[in-house]
């Protein structure tokens, strides 16, 4: 996977957390998804299409997600609340939107966010995609960004999101 893409996601995450949550995020060494342990009780998923096709998943343990939502909204919301999913989806949207805007490609579209809540669920990636996990650590707790990108072939519409399953 192009290192520039990974760098753009790191910059976008720093920007979103810094601007909207007044928080600084540190990053571990990115590696192949599966080799890096990441807990996913809450996932914000965005699909990419066009010059870059695939998806990005912002995965958080429940404790991190709860604190992130409270920092972002200025008030706590439980995981069953519509506001909880909305906030996680918007954070995923801003990170992915900001990352794709920095790719210097005029033809990348992003899907509307999807949010999955379920204890330690798995997010199945397309078999033909290259998948990288970026470990992240915010004051609200650890989380990860999983990027799965298919070969450069353009697709007609956004939304090549992976499938989630409770596990």
């Amino acid at each position: 996977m192009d290192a520039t893409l990974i760098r753009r996601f790191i910059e976008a995450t720093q920007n979103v957390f810094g601007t909207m949550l007044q928080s600084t995020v540190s990053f571990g060494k990115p590696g192949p998804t599966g080799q890096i342990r990441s807990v996913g009780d809450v996932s914000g998923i965005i699909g990419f299409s066009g010059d870059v096709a695939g998806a990005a998943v912002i995965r958080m343990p429940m404790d991190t997600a709860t604190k992130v939502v409270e920092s972002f909204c200025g008030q706590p919301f439980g995981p069953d609340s519509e506001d909880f999913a909305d906030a996680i989806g918007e954070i995923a949207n801003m990170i992915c939107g900001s990352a794709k805007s920095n790719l210097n490609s005029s033809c990348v579209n992003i899907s509307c966010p999807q949010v999955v809540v379920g204890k330690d669920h798995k997010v199945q990636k397309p078999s033909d995609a290259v998948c990288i996990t970026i470990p992240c650590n915010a004051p609200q707790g650890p989380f990860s960004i999983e990027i799965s990108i298919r070969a450069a072939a353009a697709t007609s519409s956004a939304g090549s999101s992976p499938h989630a399953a409770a596990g």
Partner: protein
Amino acid sequence: MRVMLVDDSKTIRRIQRSILEQLGYTEIEEACDGQDALSRVAAFQPNLILLDWNMPNMDGITFLKAFRQKDAATPVIMVTTESEKTRVIEAIRAGVNNYVVKPFTPDILQQRIKETLEKCKAAA
């Protein structure tokens, strides 16, 4: 001063509402996508619209093109993650008056709202 917020994220609408209230604007209408906004705009008659780009059902740029056929004057500020030059040009051509890239600080949004309203007032 009537302001319409068009964004599919309730969280973003809540943040925008809070910023507008700090500016003294309390007459605020919310719409969750372009279609919803089109159905409310005639009755609400906004003096300013804050508009997201990527939304389900009808996106912001489609709403803007439809809205501008009937109303060329009401200022519209696009508030979006879309920051590529080509997208900004597309939005300006469709009739947007100003542009705010997400993520944004309250100061930036307040500043853009003030300068947009001042420019439109001066041009009237």
